[in-house]
């Protein structure tokens, strides 16, 4: 592993994390992308912007989220102490709202009057629809028609919140196509529209901006762990689709060399079957959606439709900073299959009385693999980034239960 003085200085001026990142967008969007970058730089330098974010985080989102010692899970696994960072307790039920509040406040500063977003599982769509209701802004959410079908409760939630949900029928009709369609909308409506991207990907400054808004997860974890144990955790574990919840937990710890950091990708039916969403394990560097990242693609550079039981991890790419962290070796990336995740999902329900989303169930599956082998004084923090109400139908179908 290459040793750097700091892993927290990226991206550079052109939006690169090493080879990854950048601004691979059509010229129509480029002036706007530069405006967003400038507006974000200005906002960061303005204490009132952070104060506004903090206000809504505390009074609307419900932060800080608890750092919870999962006692029964720990005893059951018989090794390391397992803590959950409870971001599923946020308003709207996942970490997505952290980023949405930051971006919508920026959109307002820029004088934009219309919001668009893409969504896979629907969590980012719901968070965006929520914030748009709060600030009385029209909102259009693009969602692949396949995901509309498998996440119908979230579709209805978005509609209740006043958003227009557009079922995307192009391409493979999932998250990547929702992103394509949102970018097409953006190109046609650059004057008044702000695109709230849901993950740490897209053209610079999005990967860095989304990471910054999500880093509240890691910052809180650090403080809460000092309070609970008087020291840093030994291992961090988070699931990865595009990688926003993981980046939020990891980033504040990147320069703490004693902390082992693990991202868990969705292996679907198994990497060897080709039906997976593990971009880092099964992909190679490519350019899509405005940035270079690890990408699942065929020999000819065509994007291959990923597969995972979890609609939120079902993305062929992964954020550029994760791509870079993999190459540097600072973060280790593992994977968990659908079946691993379902087993973890059920165990979490029974052991802790928490119904987790299928996404963090992948992270929990990896915790279940490593915790038994680790000593009892080893501390693991897992990001429980979403709650599983939205997945109840999927699980019921899988278990052969009729609701």
């Amino acid at each position, binding site marked *: 592993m290459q040793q750097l003085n700091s892993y927290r200085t990226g991206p550079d001026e052109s939006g690169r994390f090493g080879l990854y990142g950048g601004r691979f967008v059509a010229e129509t969007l480029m002036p706007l992308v530069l405006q967003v970058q400038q507006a974000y730089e200005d906002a960061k330098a303005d204490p009132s912007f952070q104060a506004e974010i903090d206000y809504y985080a505390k009074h609307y989102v419900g932060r800080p989220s608890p750092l919870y010692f999962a006692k029964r899970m720990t005893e059951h696994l018989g090794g390391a102490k397992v803590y959950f960072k409870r971001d599923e307790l946020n308003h709207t039920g996942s970490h997505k709202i952290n980023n949405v509040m930051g971006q919508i406040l920026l959109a307002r500063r820029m004088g934009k009057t219309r919001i668009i977003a893409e969504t896979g599982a629907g969590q980012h769509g719901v968070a965006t629809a929520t914030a748009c209701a709060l600030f009385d802004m029209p909102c259009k959410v693009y969602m692949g028609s396949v995901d509309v079908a498998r996440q119908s409760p979230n579709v209805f939630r978005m509609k209740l919140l006043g958003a227009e949900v557009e079922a995307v029928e192009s*391409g493979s009709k999932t998250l990547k196509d929702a992103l394509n369609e949102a970018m097409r909308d953006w190109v*046609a409506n650059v004057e008044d529209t702000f695109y709230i991207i849901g993950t740490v990907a897209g053209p610079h400054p999005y990967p860095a901006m989304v990471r910054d808004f999500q880093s509240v997860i890691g910052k809180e974890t650090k403080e809460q762990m000092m309070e609970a144990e008087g020291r840093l955790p030994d291992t961090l574990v988070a699931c990865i689709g595009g990688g926003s919840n993981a980046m939020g937990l990891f980033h504040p710890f990147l320069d703490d060399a004693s902390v082992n950091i693990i991202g868990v990708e969705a292996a679907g039916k198994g990497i060897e079957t080709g039906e997976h969403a593990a971009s880092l394990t099964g992909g190679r560097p490519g350019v899509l959606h405005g940035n270079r990242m690890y990408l699942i693609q065929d020999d000819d550079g065509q994007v291959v439709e990923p597969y995972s039981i979890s609609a939120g991890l079902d993305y062929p790419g992964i954020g550029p900073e994760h791509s870079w962290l993999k190459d540097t070796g600072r973060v280790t990336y593992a994977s968990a299959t659908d079946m691993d995740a379902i087993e973890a999902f059920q165990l979490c329900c029974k052991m802790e009385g928490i119904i987790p989303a299928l996404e963090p169930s992948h992270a929990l599956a990896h915790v279940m693999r490593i915790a038994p082998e680790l000593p009892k004084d080893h501390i693991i923090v897992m990001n429980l980034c979403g709650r599983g109400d939205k997945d109840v139908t999927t699980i019921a179908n899988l278990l052969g239960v009729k609701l």
Partner: protein
Amino acid sequence: MAIAPDSGRIAARFAALKAEGRGGLVTYITAGDPNYETGLEILLGLPDAGADIVEIGMPFTDPMADGPAIQAAGLRALHNGQTMKKTLAMATAFRAKHPETPLVLMGYYNPIYSYGVDRFLQDAIAAGIDGLIVVDLPPEEDAELCIPALQAGVNFIRLATPTTDDKRLPKVLQNTSGFVYYVSILGITGTKEIQADPVRGAVARIRRHTDLPIVVGFGIRTPDQAREISRAADAAVIGSAIIEQVKANLDDKGAPLPGCARAVLDYVAALADGVRS
């Protein structure tokens, strides 16, 4: 301009158009749509149908700047086994038959990046390609392909758009060669109707910054529009409307009906009559 490759066929064609006193017709088709054989038949017939410059789209699964017609064309081509190698083979066949018509490859970066930039440029030159238009490579990413292409002697044709203001235009034009492609609308290909008056204004604005020929595209559908826009600039680009003719001549399984290529070429001939009338 940092590096200016010899614009060769492109410059010669625009000089000839000027001598004829008319605007040009630039046609776009997606390589391998609806399949290799029919796609090649269409491609090879374009100059005789009246196309002055030919653009071949390199199909991509995720064409973010394109509307439904070109998206579907790309998927049809990929479904029928189109690859970068086959696209370059089509270009080679075109060049063998038509030594003088400028040929431009248009598309997105990832298939080129995956093929390998150096290898791609070598093979594109061998195939007789005159220029490249790569939608998702703005000047901010010039080091990726633009500079290597110019150094290898391949024109890099940049898109300018309604959002490219006077402050940004010099940056966009800096490493552009061959011609400038003005995107006439805010939006994706084939979705909005073009308006001639704003186009005239935009072309005049771009002319203040460059001597390169200016072509205009996105939203031209009829021979009348082709004539009007080709005169407002140096040439008009038509893509989606041609591709819709391909689609209209497929059976319900997506296979070309007899006479598919002829029908598409007849449509191009009507557009060509438009710019010549």
